[in-house]
């Protein structure tokens, strides 16, 4: 099946259908949304993972320079902001404009034991990767029995 992108004959329902599928794909059966989760499909998409020592945050934000992000942590709330300007390209005919354009800020709640003083940030191939150390005191400790 071919769908023309360029002459607008896809219809609104087709577009809703696509959106719904994208949402399902992105969020799947994610069970509970935190109060700071914001709307679905927000830019940039964020994945968070944890090891006993560190919390890793991956923000999928392509097309930036490393210095263009505004990242801050207050207690255990991480905030990532910035502006992405999609070039206007005058005298062109536009067929699709799906990429994010404008100002964004996302805040996510991290585990409570993160240490805001020990954060490392790198930006590679359009992914901002933050590594936040967790405080040693709350790591699970082996208690010797003997």
């Amino acid at each position, binding site marked *: 099946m071919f769908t023309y992108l360029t002459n607008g004959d896809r219809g609104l329902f087709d577009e809703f259908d696509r959106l719904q599928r994208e949402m399902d794909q992105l969020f799947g059966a994610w069970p509970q949304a935190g109060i700071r989760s914001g709307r679905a499909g927000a830019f940039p998409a*964020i994945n968070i993972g944890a090891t006993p020592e560190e919390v890793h945050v991956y923000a999928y934000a392509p097309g930036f320079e490393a210095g263009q992000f505004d990242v801050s942590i207050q207690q255990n709330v991480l905030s990532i902001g910035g502006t992405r300007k999609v070039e206007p390209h005058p005298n062109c005919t536009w067929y699709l404009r799906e990429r994010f354009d404008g100002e964004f800020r996302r805040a996510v709640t991290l585990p409570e034991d993160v240490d805001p003083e020990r954060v490392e940030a790198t930006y590679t191939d359009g992914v901002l990767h933050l590594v936040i150390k967790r405080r040693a005191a709350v790591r699970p400790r082996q208690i010797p029995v003997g």
Partner: protein
Amino acid sequence: MSDSKAVKETRSANPATVPESALRPRVEVFEDAHGITLIADLPGVCSERLNVQVDKDTLLIEGKADIAMPEGMQALHAEVRSKLYRRSFALSSELDPDAIEAKLKDGVLTLHIPKRAEVRPRKVEVRVA
């Protein structure tokens, strides 16, 4: 005018042929007198893991995100649930697939697909009678 149908998206008639896990990259497509420009967001994809190919009139963009993750990491929150990106478009005959230029920077792919020289618009001069 049929020229406006320069790039159309192809979808597989049989959904089973497209693995469910591939993400559909967000794109911009625009046209000027010289050709079509397609810009795609492919965060996490480096040039070694990007595949752009034209088979007959189908342009396929495929990439795999290569993101360093520590051993034994547990997911706390996941909005991106696949490493694969895939999207394809049908090119119309006035575009020249042999002359496509591709550039990948910071997870953004830019493709220039020029029109064949003979179909580029010519300015028609209107003389005052």
